[in-house]
């Protein structure tokens, strides 16, 4: 099974370095074990048996930022938590990505007050935003797939694309 069958008896596969590196990065992208609020419950169930995130090589939540590639900001970030979050992000080795999961992490959500950071993009650069309060596990998986697609498009020069926003606004106010 696997690549040796597809390659037949040639024993050689040719590809570009970019595709090879990005393939490796997407298929073993380990998230940081880091939950902040109710979104973390959905994140846990996405990794459980019903939704089974390990299909995409992401079953391994690392409890140490030194071993993690992806930070899923699952929940609202309080002003007191923000320096801790930034520190965890700084401790993660490059290349690293951030997903803002749910309304609170994306823009503060319903908590428009003194205690909550109005969008985690004030603290760390975000690659994918997606909406929901909390988002269902399918939405998380969709966001992660979107991030994987983005990582596969990455160039060897290291230039990053703009952030992806996963839901169009329901009402356009002119």
């Amino acid at each position, binding site marked *: 099974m696997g690549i040796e069958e597809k390659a037949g008896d040639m024993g050689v596969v040719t590809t570009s370095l970019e595709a090879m590196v990005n393939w490796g990065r997407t298929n073993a992208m380990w998230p940081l074990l880091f939950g902040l609020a109710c979104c973390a419950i959905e994140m846990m169930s996405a990794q459980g048996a019903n939704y089974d995130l390990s299909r995409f090589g992401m079953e391994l939540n690392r409890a140490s930022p030194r071993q993690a590639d992806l930070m899923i900001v699952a929940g609202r970030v309080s002003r007191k938590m923000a320096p801790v979050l930034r520190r965890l992000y700084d401790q993660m080795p490059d290349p690293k990505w951030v997903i803002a999961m749910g309304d609170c992490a994306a*823009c503060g959500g319903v908590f428009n007050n003194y205690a909550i950071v109005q969008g985690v993009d004030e603290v*760390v650069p975000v690659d994918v935003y997606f909406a929901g309060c909390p988002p269902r596990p399918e939405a998380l998986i969709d966001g992660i797939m979107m991030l994987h697609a983005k990582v596969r498009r990455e160039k060897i020069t290291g230039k990053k694309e703009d952030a992806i926003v996963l839901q169009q606004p329901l009402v356009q106010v002119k």
Partner: protein
Amino acid sequence: MDNTYILDILRARLPQATLAADEFRGDLRVTVRREDLLDLARLLRDDPDLGFNYLENLCGVDYLGREPRFEVVYNVLSLASGQRICLKVGAPEDDPRVPSLTGVWPTANYHEREAYDLLGIVFDGHPALSRILMPDDWVGHPLRKDHPLGDEEVAFTFNQDRIYAHKPFAKK
């Protein structure tokens, strides 16, 4: 031991201390003069007839537009008799100071720090009066009634460019 008995003891021992007293659903509420709070608390704890040895809860209140503006409420329980008493101390806006009761009931320590953090009431004699919930470099006291409710203007498509122009986005 009933409420009138407690009130009689307090009025006999510290005649100046109680400014007002009333009863609500069987519980005694006493408004205490600020200068006598410490003496009254010691009396409540140490008097063998009273024995109020357990401070259940302490909280600050902001009555904006009323004088005195701030009030600290203490709910004290006697574990032996099950009797409760509620103490209230006012603190004016220009001098929001109340004596600390940490030396009488150690429970007061963290609760007084919370009241200081959120309302800016200063507790004289507290061993380490510092913020407990908000970050240490926070400016202001967010539970005061004149603190703004919202933090940031809500962004819609018609005003998001103006808001995002001065929003502090994180760089790599």
